């Protein structure tokens, strides 16, 4: 795109050059003509170049980050990064979006990117949610992935704004050593950059890493670096050009439970007779350092603080209030080691699998429960019914690699549609259940890489004529009536051989 401009510029220079040669002949008219042509050429080139720079919407020269502070929380296996950016618009044109850059390896493990803008000062501070969408820039070095934050009001020239970004990374703590025995502690690698990767010039930046314990085996030093207690500080770094990257590796101890659900299938069956039945199929795995050697139950039970420090045996599931008929079973049968505590706001189901989970060990189980219909099914103003249910996994602090939610709508439902606050894959299926003739429509929603921050309500809309509810009892009544008619037919017909 730049080359035709350059060609035209060179052509203009060539034209003016020829006139300059003729200047030596001393003609005053020739001199005036050459100067005006040169000026015209230069202004034309300048206009074209300024047009190009302003037309590139998120040009890296337009925004400058005055101060960037990044806090990385490594306390659990889900890495939460809080980024506070103070941006300034240094060009004349207003800026309507800010672009965040991520290295390609990190972008694959990104579960969530949220941004909000701080409005007001000190006591009257309030936060406004901003939209974040993945975007692409034409000249991305080394496969950098981008997300663009849309500002509420475009940033005018010289104006500054403060943005707070939260992004969550999963599977970013790599256990090293990859295999540990029962009595060893779990150590993991965390790889990132001391300098915040950004397409803009960063004037000042600092990165803080919060570790779960004071034990850090090693960390890369990029001066100035300071490690005290549970905090590792990289920075402050001054005046770094765009796309500056300084890889660091931190080798730390992390014994928090690395509970990962490989596959979660949640089936929500709606019955207009007053109940919503939920069945959840879990494939749970411990995604930390793999367990090697023998498992000694004696050692595990006699010295709990020394043995199995990285393992976990309890899981907490947060269920809605007024839940009934909760069951917890697997392929073998019912698992009785569970406790249900409920109050008027929430119910907590604490489950204990049949064995504690060490690195690489898996557990497959089913949790099912029923909920009252009036808590979740509503009627919208345009006559459609909708289910308002929460997306995500009820288990606390777990990452779900693949989450599938199947909403089974009652027989006779038409026009199903789903609305979720983040992108999900949708499709429709049919399921044959109790007293079904044509089958029930199933709305299937799928999402990969789900974290607890995804536990937000979603809606499934459908139309249903209440008269269809009569189909079920009338079907049963007609079966009984057919029985009576058969009795009549038998009694009225004379089947005797001899009269």
């Amino acid at each position: 795109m730049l080359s035709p401009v350059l060609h035209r510029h060179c052509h203009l220079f060539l034209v003016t050059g020829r006139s300059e040669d003729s200047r030596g002949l001393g003609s005053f008219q020739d001199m005036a003509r050459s100067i005006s042509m040169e000026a015209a050429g230069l202004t034309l080139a300048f206009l074209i170049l300024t047009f190009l720079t302003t037309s590139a919407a998120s040009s890296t020269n337009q925004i400058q980050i005055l101060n960037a502070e990044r806090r990385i929380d490594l306390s659990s296996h889900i890495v939460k990064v809080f980024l506070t950016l103070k941006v300034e618009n240094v060009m004349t044109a207003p800026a309507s979006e800010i672009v965040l850059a991520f290295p390609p390896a990190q972008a694959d493990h990104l579960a969530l990117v949220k941004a909000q803008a701080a409005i007001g000062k000190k006591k009257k501070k309030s936060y406004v949610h901003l939209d974040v969408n993945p975007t692409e820039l034409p000249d991305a070095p080394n496969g950098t992935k981008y997300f663009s934050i849309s500002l509420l009001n475009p940033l005018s020239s010289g104006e500054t704004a403060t943005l707070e970004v939260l992004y969550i990374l999963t599977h970013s703590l790599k256990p090293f050593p990859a295999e540990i025995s029962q009595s060893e502690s779990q150590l993991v690698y965390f790889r990132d950059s001391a300098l915040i990767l950004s397409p803009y010039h960063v004037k000042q930046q600092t990165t803080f890493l919060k570790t779960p314990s004071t034990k850090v085996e090693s960390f890369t030093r990029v001066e100035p670096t300071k490690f005290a207690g549970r905090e590792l500080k990289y920075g402050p770094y001054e005046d770094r050009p765009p796309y500056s990257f300084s890889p660091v590796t931190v080798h730390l101890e992390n014994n928090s439970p690395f509970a990962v659900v490989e596959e979660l299938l949640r089936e929500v069956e709606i019955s207009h007779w007053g109940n919503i039945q939920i069945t959840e199929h879990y494939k749970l795995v411990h995604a930390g350092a793999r367990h090697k050697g023998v498992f000694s139950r004696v050692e595990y039970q006699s010295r709990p603080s020394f043995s199995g420090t990285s393992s976990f045996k309890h899981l907490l599931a947060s269920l809605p209030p007024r839940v009934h008929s909760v069951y917890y079973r697997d392929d073998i049968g019912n698992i009785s080691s569970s406790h249900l505590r409920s109050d008027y706001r929430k119910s907590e189901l604490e489950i204990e699998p049949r064995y504690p989970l060490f690195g690489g060990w898996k557990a497959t189980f089913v949790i099912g429960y029923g909920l009252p219909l009036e808590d979740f099914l509503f009627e919208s103003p345009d006559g459609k019914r909708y289910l308002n249910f929460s997306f995500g996994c009820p288990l606390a602090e777990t990452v779900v690699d693949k989450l599938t939610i199947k909403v089974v709508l009652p027989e006779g439902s038409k026009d199903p549609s789903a609305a979720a606050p983040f992108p999900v894959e949708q499709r429709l299926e049919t399921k044959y259940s109790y007293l079904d003739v044509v089958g029930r429509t199933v709305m299937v929603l799928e999402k990969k890489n789900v974290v607890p921050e995804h536990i937000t309500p979603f809606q499934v809309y459908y139309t249903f004529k209440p008269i269809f509810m009569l189909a079920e009892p009338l079907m049963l009544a007609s079966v009984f009536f057919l029985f009576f008619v058969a009795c009549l037919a038998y009694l009225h017909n004379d089947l005797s051989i001899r009269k």
Partner: protein
Amino acid sequence: MGSKAAAITSPVPVTWYPTLAIFMLAIGLIVSASFFIYEATSSRRNRSLAKELTTGAVASFFLGFGSLFMLLASGVYV
């Protein structure tokens, strides 16, 4: 969401399900008993098809609804 949306409940209160099940099944069984007694006691010439069909229809109606409420009361939300 602006105003509170109307919650949809079942057409029959859920707490009535066991009571309704028992009463409707009882009535249905009584009517079907009356049907079979009529069949057993009447002779071939005195039988009235209309009476048999109506008794059968009433019995099947009550038995049908009674069995639906029995299914709902026992937790099979059809």
